[in-house]
């Protein structure tokens, strides 16, 4: 889970101009001012990074980064 969170923050840093020290597991995507298209872009990037299928509603703007990491980790376990 921590590993997934760190890699997710890595995607946010590389693709969305977000500094790692700006965010915590509690930070929501709303707070990062990421619009709905940005969440789709993040989902696509995460799909490549973690090798799991991520649907449109898996990452919502009201979710925190920690919640998104948990959702991705759960998928990774279920296919792993």
């Amino acid at each position, binding site marked *: 889970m921590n590993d997934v969170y760190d890699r997710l923050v890595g995607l946010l840093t590389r693709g969305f101009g977000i500094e790692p020290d700006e965010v915590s597991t509690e930070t929501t995507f709303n707070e990062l001012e990421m*619009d*709905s*298209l940005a969440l*789709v*872009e993040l*989902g*696509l*990037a995460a799909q*490549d990074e973690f090798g799991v299928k991520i649907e*449109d509603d898996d990452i919502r703007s009201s979710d925190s980064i920690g919640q998104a990491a948990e959702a991705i980790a759960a998928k990774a376990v279920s296919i792993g």
Partner: protein
Amino acid sequence: MTRAAVISGLGSWLPPRIVTNDDLARELDTDDAWIRSRTGIGQRHTADDRTATSDLAVEAGRRALKSAGRESADCVVVATTTPDRPCPATAPLVATGLNLGTVPAFDVAAVCTGFLYGLGVAGGLIAAGTVDSVLVVGAEKFSSILDPQDRSTRAIFGDGAGAVLLTAGDPDAPGALGPLDLASDGTGSDLITVPSGGSREPFTARTGPGYDPYFRMVGKTVFRSAVERMAASALDVAHRAGWSVDEVDLLVPHQANLRIMHAVADRMKLPRERCAVHLDRVGNTAAAAVPLALADAVERGRLRPGDRVVMTAFGGGITWGACAVRWPDVTPI
């Protein structure tokens, strides 16, 4: 010897009237920064009330013929989402407008993928020996189907037309259409649609509140699907052409949205600089977008003879596709 369809002329036409983001902001709840950050679009062209799709197509077709140094073609294929009328097709009018006599002429309906479908059909007619040349036109007066109150579609779409002349030639000649991928998935037919006015919900049956004659799009789902489909299709044709991603000189994607285009390049592991961008000046012109972007890329020195180019598109249907071409020495007009 096998006959190939070779690109021997390229024409483009945009109606002169420009609508800037600031113009839209005066009518709708939007602004320049909002439109640019979400779409990458700064302005679009819109045709006036007297101009129909066939008028734009005739102008682009005339220019493609001139670019090829020819006065005629054996066949006309028009890819459009916005025909002059639901019946008949627009292409016969275009053929007549170009003084091509009684040549075969028909429309192809694959929304934003229409131009690539048109290339596929035209390439087949030439390869089979049915005709020796085909004018393939992508033309749209997309403004004619937009909901005046819908800020998302009003900001994205523009009018215009682009055309290529395909002529029979050697498969190894520069400009010969290379590997082509075309696909569709009708389970996504509701994603990009004009809900009413067809046989499912005819104009005469219901004109109440449920009747919707305007273009609608489910943005988020389309975004994801467009990125996945275009990237996979572009990689497929590049692979079949024997090119590594590094060897692709220019990707000419359907000009849907700058963020979609960049996401396609990222997914292909292609540097974003090798993605042709025209929509900042013309918006998304649907079936006209790929030929217009090709002409723009040549005019700006981004696409040179001998370059390996991959075109890819995604549109309503849903449909998608890609085509690989070694770029010929043509001057767009």
